[in-house]
């Protein structure tokens, strides 16, 4: 079977786009990706979105975006897996092109978080947990993460501010990404003195939710157009797994089995080893989840994920660079669009176009798109292929 290539990428800045609607955000990213791919048109659109029916009172995004982009007549559907919707949409696009039934697919991640504010946004986010047994108790994603972090600190011997490295690294990388939400960096003193949001988390342990859209053009290697990009990127691994929806049903609260399974299967597809991976875009919606992702994939032993961040091993020139364009924490966290942003950023890295954030000689990237507290894990491996 032919390789599946990501031959075009597009994204809007992640921000509070009060002046831009859902369809306009989507169109901006779609147009950008099609242009980047040399004008190639898709036959199908797979949309990663988490909350449009709730926060924007807008379902049926496939018809809306295809229509608004002048693409009526093609196939277009939404894929939903909470915060992992973007990664899940990428996997559907990959399966469609790999199968040969779709020649060129557009994968779009889009989320509009800021049309509502405060408690109604929290109520919408709470729908990603177990409505009958978590949300009814007033639980939101922040509560799930805080309880996970509380238990982690209880079980492991670690210093106060042990998690600081995740936010510091992300914000440092955000300074070099023109599309990042936060570009001014972060000092340890600011982290240490920050207000607690939900004990033991402070505001810098929580990624800022915002608006954004990102898009990818996927096509088969034998169908590549005469392309401006000398360095092409192919999908060398793709996998997805789920764990229990509710946090309380986990056999082990501090291990993301779905992440381990998804990463393991994606790597096995072409025999990629941990040491082959040049960068890891993890899902740092909360810093505790970044630590657990490093442990669940196998970059750190259990209880030591925070230490990779504390010791600079996840920085651009470290052993395993993470959140290389700012991650969810500094680039911003546009819900179900996030997984597509990760892919766009990895493609920029693999093409060698990441500027001051460039990971040297990057040729292999691991992406983790995660829904809830590891309830869904979607992993992709991207590798370079010179044409």
């Amino acid at each position: 079977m032919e390789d599946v290539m990501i031959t075009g990428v597009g994204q809007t800045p992640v921000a509070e786009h009060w002046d831009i609607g859902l369809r306009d955000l989507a169109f901006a990213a779609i147009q950008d990706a099609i242009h980047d791919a040399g004008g190639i048109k898709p036959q199908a659109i797979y949309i990663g979105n988490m909350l449009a029916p709730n926060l924007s009172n807008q379902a049926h995004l496939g018809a809306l975006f295809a229509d608004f982009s002048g693409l009526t007549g093609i196939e277009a559907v939404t894929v939903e897996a909470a915060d992992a919707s973007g990664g899940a949409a990428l996997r559907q696009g990959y399966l469609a092109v790999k199968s040969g039934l779709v020649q060129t697919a557009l994968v779009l991640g889009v989320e509009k978080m800021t049309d509502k504010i405060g408690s109604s946004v929290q109520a919408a986010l709470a729908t990603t947990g177990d409505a009958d047994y978590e949300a009814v108790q007033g639980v939101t994603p922040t509560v799930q993460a805080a309880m996970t972090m509380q238990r982690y600190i209880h079980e492991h011997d670690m210093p106060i501010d042990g998690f600081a490295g995740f936010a510091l690294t992300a914000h440092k990388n955000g300074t070099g990404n023109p599309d990042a939400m936060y570009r001014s960096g972060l000092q340890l003193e600011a982290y240490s003195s920050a207000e607690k949001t939900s004990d033991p988390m402070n505001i810098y342990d929580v990624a800022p939710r915002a608006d954004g859209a990102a898009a990818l053009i996927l096509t088969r290697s034998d169908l590549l157009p005469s392309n401006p990009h000398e360095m092409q990127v192919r999908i060398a691994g793709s996998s997805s797994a789920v764990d229990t929806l509710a946090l309380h049903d986990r056999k082990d609260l501090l291990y993301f089995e779905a992440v381990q399974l998804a990463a393991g299967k994606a790597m096995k597809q072409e025999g990629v080893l941990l040491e082959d991976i040049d960068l890891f875009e993890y899902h740092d919606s909360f810093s505790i989840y970044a630590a657990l992702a490093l442990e669940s994939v196998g970059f750190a032993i259990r209880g030591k994920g925070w230490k990779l961040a504390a010791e600079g091993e996840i920085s651009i020139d470290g052993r395993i660079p993470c959140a290389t364009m700012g991650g969810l924490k500094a680039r911003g966290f546009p819900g179900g669009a996030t997984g597509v942003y990760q892919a766009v950023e990895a493609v920029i890295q693999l093409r060698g176009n990441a500027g001051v954030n460039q990971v040297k000689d990057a040729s292999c990237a691991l992406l983790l798109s995660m829904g809830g507290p590891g309830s869904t894990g979607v992993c992709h491996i991207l590798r370079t292929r010179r044409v």
Partner: protein
Amino acid sequence: MEIPRHWRLKKQRYALVGEVCPHCEKKIFPPRDICPNCGNEARDLFAFSGKGEVYSYTTIYEAPSGYDSTTPYTVALVKLDEGPIVTAQLTDQGEQPTEIGMPVEMVTRKMRDDGDERGMIVYGYKFRPVLKN
């Protein structure tokens, strides 16, 4: 407000009725009909004692709608004496700080309201520190 939805969960909300697996004896809450331990069908009802201890916890200041009037509140993962962990708010703590390992017991309390005098009020389980005799 979804009345049938809360009504059909009344045994769980008011009496912590879960299940016990007839094959491996595993106690199950919330009920799920397929035993998470052995994978066999489990439909035998089992009422939990309501005793347990705090496994983890946090306090929330930015609550979802329906919970605004009680903010801030503390949510815990409570490990029940019979085994399962349940997510629940803590209540009746007074000045007592929350700690992992703290013994707690189930009580019935108001969970949420619509902020509307004519709206439905949802009752269900919360946990409080075990009362000393």
